[in-house]
């Protein structure tokens, strides 16, 4: 992706100007302060580096890849994390998945199939920009039923988003549309996940913990019935808020009439051999992702999500089968480095214990044991949802939050299900910053939005969801008997 040079607002200009000095001062303060009682020195350094990087990413005072490299260096040298672990992040499956996803996208783009798919979507569903955005959201929701991985769904949607973005010339002109395509994509991915129990493994872990601690079982259908209305309303809120925050510059791609798009689609004629190859490889990839539960039974071995993507990338490069050469492949290495640095910063917070220390501290400072049920519910949901700021792993967040909430409920004498199950519905609320989950990184790699765009939009949507869940306490959850 080329670097987007765009005119900054006054606020952004001052943030750019002051960002690096502020980041350095915050780093210095955290680095030199006495280590708090509940954490180690390494944890303190990890927090200092994360805070430093966060300020730089939000203010864009340095290019994101430079900040990421600083994270890697600072964590290793100052002792926030070992050098081996920090550098090892580049070998994590999410990085390889992204590399493979971009190879797949390059292949789809070169073949012309992705253009055909994008034009088909625009002509079929896109009388205007709003309809295209809505149809992408719906597509994200529907594939959550059949592809049980947030990362795989992001990888599937990425080529489509990029090609629609290209049709709209989002890099050059219609930047707001680019932001909406990408941010709504990641939001729809995460929010849809909360509606379907099996859409992400930490949710299954959550109900397992609830069962172990309270003897209360939650079935797939019960989860769907309870959570889906919240998810759909949140998606709707995200859609409308997004249109207000980033008003689309045009209603039609490239400023052309819809008839021109239809004509262009018609002129593509029948699929050529390259498109058929691309379709075959992409179709095979989706099939393998959707059927990962049955790999062992079908093939005798399991093929992980990232290995499916690598196989797909291999197929695109193979002679006679594939259609791509290395020179034709467009991988944004600056964003791969950003991803590695961001992930290292986030994971070091988990592994050094800062994240759980912060959460426990927040609960005890708030004095939750003296609150009435309604206030307690609101506070627990808020913390549960926004704790993703310090926990970059949904799994780690789940194993800390759910038992903490159940224990807290028992301690204050309220029904633990009334707190733990709604808290479980917020596990997938990781929509505010790129390092928070792999789909965020994948969509961020489009280059269509800044960290601040995602943060601002994401916080508003999560606040909206929090209000919806609070309202559900008096309505939907009461009807279902959860509270």
């Amino acid at each position, binding site marked *: 992706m080329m670097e987007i040079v765009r005119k*900054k607002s006054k606020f952004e200009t001052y943030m750019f100007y002051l960002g690096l000095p502020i980041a350095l001062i915050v780093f210095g303060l955290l680095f030199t302060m006495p280590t708090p009682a*509940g954490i180690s020195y390494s944890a303190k350094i990890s927090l200092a580096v994360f805070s430093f990087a966060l300020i730089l990413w939000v203010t864009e005072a340095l290019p994101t890849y430079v900040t990421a490299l600083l994270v890697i260096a600072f964590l*290793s040298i100052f*002792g926030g994390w*070992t050098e081996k672990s920090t550098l090892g992040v580049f070998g994590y499956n999410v990085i390889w998945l992204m590399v493979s996803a971009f190879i797949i996208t390059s292949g789809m783009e070169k073949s012309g199939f992705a253009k055909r798919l994008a034009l088909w979507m625009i002509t079929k569903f896109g009388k205007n920009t709003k309809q295209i955005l809505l149809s992408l959201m719906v597509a994200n929701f529907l594939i959550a039923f059949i592809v049980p991985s947030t990362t795989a769904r992001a990888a599937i949607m990425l080529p489509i988003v990029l090609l629609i973005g290209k049709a709209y010339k989002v890099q050059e002109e219609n930047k707001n549309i680019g932001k909406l395509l990408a941010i709504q994509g990641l939001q729809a991915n995460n929010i849809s996940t909360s509606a379907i129990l099996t859409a992400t493994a930490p949710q299954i872990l959550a109900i397992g913990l609830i069962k172990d601690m309270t003897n209360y079982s939650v079935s797939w259908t019960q989860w769907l019935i309870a959570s889906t209305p919240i998810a759909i309303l949140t998606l709707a809120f995200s859609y409308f808020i997004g249109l207000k925050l980033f008003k689309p510059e045009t209603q039609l791609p490239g400023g052309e009439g819809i008839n021109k798009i239809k004509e262009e689609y018609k002129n593509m004629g029948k699929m050529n051999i390259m498109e058929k190859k691309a379709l075959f490889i992409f179709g095979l990839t989706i099939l393998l992702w959707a059927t990962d539960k049955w790999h062992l039974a079908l093939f005798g071995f399991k093929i992980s999500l990232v290995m499916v993507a690598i196989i797909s990338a291999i197929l695109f490069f193979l002679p006679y089968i594939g259609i791509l050469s290395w020179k034709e492949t467009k991988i944004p290495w600056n964003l791969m480095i950003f991803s590695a640095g961001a992930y290292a910063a986030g994971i070091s917070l988990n592994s050094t214990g800062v994240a759980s220390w912060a959460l426990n501290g927040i609960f005890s400072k708030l004095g939750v044991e003296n609150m009435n049920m309604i206030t307690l519910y609101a506070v627990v949901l808020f913390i549960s949802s926004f704790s993703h700021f310090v926990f970059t792993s949904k799994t780690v967040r789940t194993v800390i939050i759910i038992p903490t909430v159940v224990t807290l409920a028992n301690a204050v004498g309220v029904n633990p299900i009334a707190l733990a199950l709604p808290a479980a519905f917020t596990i997938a609320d990781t929509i505010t910053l790129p390092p928070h989950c792999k789909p965020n990184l994948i969509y961020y790699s489009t280059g269509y939005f800044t960290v601040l765009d995602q943060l601002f939009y994401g916080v508003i949507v999560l606040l909206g969801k929090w209000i919806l869940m609070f309202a559900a306490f008096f309505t939907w959850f009461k009807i279902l008997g959860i509270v």
Partner: protein
Amino acid sequence: MSIKFKKIYFVFILFMLFIFTTYIFAQDYGEITSYTEKIYPNGEDALIISYITIIPNNSNEVFIPFNKNLNLIKYKTNSSLLVKPELIKINGKTIYKFTFSEKMDKYEIELYCNLSGLYKSKKAKMKDSHPGGVTTISYKFINYLPVIIKNYQIYLYIPDKKELYEVLSPSKKFKIDKDKQGKYVYYKVSKISPFNNVEVKINIYTQSSKLKIILWITIIIVSIILLIKRFNVIKSYKKE
């Protein structure tokens, strides 16, 4: 009886004998229901205070595993002893035997011991990039008894003017906290099986004040240079 049935019957008898013997054998040593160790720095040595709750055997005897490197300074019990505590060897391992005069359901014993060299600086094994001056402290508690020790807890205190750099072992479920005596690492296990051990290994560190000064000087200089160099961004925005 058929030969096959005789074999099965013989194995069954042996198995029951083994279980019974083990039960009797275990009963001979009583039962440690809780064992808490608090390890305080004392220069390069350690002062270890152990709080033990123990159910005696039929002879009012209790047995406590004892590391041969430890030196018992004093002890306290909640009941009077028949004889002074004896250091005995069982299977080559050192055990302290306490014999009480009065029969009670359980006894509480406090042991005050010195362990030489525990807090002596041992350079930490660290590869690649890392801060200098990190040292390692490692303490291992071994259950020399042929019975389970229940509810083992350990508090390993950090020396004054040192920082806890990281906890190497255990990898999970430990807690870091602070009380009047200082900062400590706390770890608890529900049981230690016979002849098994619990190890707590930490790295400690002293952050150099020279480094802090250099860091702040660097931050101030870099910030000032940047604010000057980038001022044109503000100026050109205002011009527009």
